[in-house]
């Protein structure tokens, strides 16, 4: 699981309020190179919850992201920022571990890189 996806997911158990972001418990992190596409990154930057990305990256051992994302206009010229953003968003993989709901403690397992987000019948 890459952080781009972590940034989209919550715990959808009924009644849970504080559900985003899910905390990452990393057991095995791998890195895979992905083609760099600045247009795609700029488009994504506008959609991303920045703090969740920064925290997620930290819990996977990557600490290079700035606390605040630069303005969208400045990003155009800031290649070094885009490279870091690219790495955090797309190249870090959580291969084994869990996504943990901060409120209920519910663990969504990530196994072979695939998060299992389906709820049990008593949670639906």
């Amino acid at each position, binding site marked *: 699981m890459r952080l781009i996806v972590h940034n*989209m997911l919550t715990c959808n158990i009924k009644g849970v309020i504080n559900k985003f972001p899910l905390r990452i418990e990393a057991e095995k992190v791998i890195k895979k190179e992905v083609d760099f596409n600045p247009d*795609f990154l700029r488009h994504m930057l506008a959609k991303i919850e920045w703090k969740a990305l920064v925290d997620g990256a930290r819990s996977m051992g990557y600490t290079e992201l700035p606390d605040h994302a630069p303005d969208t206009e400045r990003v155009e010229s800031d290649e070094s920022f885009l490279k870091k953003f690219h790495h955090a968003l797309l190249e870090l993989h959580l291969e084994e571990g869990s996504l943990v709901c901060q409120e209920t403690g519910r663990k969504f397992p990530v196994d072979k890189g*695939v998060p299992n987000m*389906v*709820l*049990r*019948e*008593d949670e639906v």
Partner: protein
Amino acid sequence: MWFLCVFYHRLLDFRKPEVEALAELFGEEDESPLQWRLPEHHHNDTPFHFVHLSSEEIAQNIAKRSLLVKGMYELWGEGASYEELKDSIERFPDSRKLPFLASDSTFRISVETFGKALTFDEQRERIDSFTYVPFKGKVNLKNPDHNFFLMEMDESEENNGLQPILQRRIFFGREVGFADRKLLPTFQLKSRTYLGPTAMDAEMAFLMANQAKAASGKLVYDPFVGTGSILVSAARFGAMTMGADIDIRVVRDGRGPDCNVWSNFKQYGLPTPVALLRMDNNLPPWRSGLKEIFDAIICDPPYGVRAGGRKSGGRKILKGTVDPYTVPEDKRTDHIPSTGAYSLVECVHDLLHLAARMLVMKGRLVFFFPVLRDENGSEVKFPEHPCFKLVAVSEQILSSRYSRVLLTMVKVEPYSEVIEEAARLMHLEFRENHLKWLEEGNIHSSVFKPSDTSEIRTDSKSFKDPKPKYRGKYV
């Protein structure tokens, strides 16, 4: 500029929509629909069509990326006879002809016939008749700079079951581009390491990716990803992909470390999906506020028995347990949640809702929808949503009674709460119509059983076919 667009005689309903989607992808004005014209005396299912495009470059890009364009040509002349053809070619301006006839270029003339075969000598004779075109270049049969085609379609003959045209027509033109069907043997399902019973055929998957305008820099999502065959085609066209499925054995395990959804991408050297998830599209875990994240959603939703839809939490209360059913503490980690049936109507509703929220503006939703082929030819009601405009409807006939229709919808309105209410009303109406229609034929039990082509012939007496006879699974 008008181009002669010659199609393969396949998947007839998919041909123009493919060109239209690609025209938009390659920069043709997307507000105005493409203009099409038929040659004289031809009907809509003919291989020959004229299409208006703003440049040769667009025409070439469309043809190269398509699956169903046999050839796109700059027309130099046409006629009902060789005399008419000659007049017509002579009237075509020199300024358009001479650049392609120069002495330092190479060329080839090919003869193609429809509805009859020509001997080698007959072809020779036709090529030799072009003395009135001042070809100055050298002939090169293998790799010419310019490819010219003479195409002859004869009257009277039935062609492939296609109703005959009334008059012979001859075309002569310069080829601008053609479909790269070499993709198909490479990507055919037989070559796929991880296959499932409902994997999408490679040609259809590419057509779906074209409808979705999949391209580099875009993110394409399949909420019913299965073995990933639809996303493989989107990845081949450069898109980033993401998929989800409720079946964890398929989406996570496959048949082992080298035979799973990921390996289906790796085997072709394609980038693997940015994510594969196990989730229920009836209860998706998206964070609130997330929207307009995908450029396209493409899928073959779980209809019918072959891949019947499931959703979480449907199990009946077990005897002796207290309501509501709770999973015992010690069984929780390995517990596989039970699933309940997921009706077509509900499944389509969830899909439209997902797309309305998650697609960017002008993003495309491309999906199959099953239909009962109606003997009275009455209109089929397709699902609707106020955020979407239906831009293409392409039917693939599966048997004498069932078809599936590929629907292409474009997001034209942003998602909002007001829209949500309008969508709910549309959904209720659709649901009611659909329930009525379901009673007439049990589509769930039969639409996606592997199609039996023999049925098409044997059953035809009891069933008045609304589509012409030559239409079948591949046409």
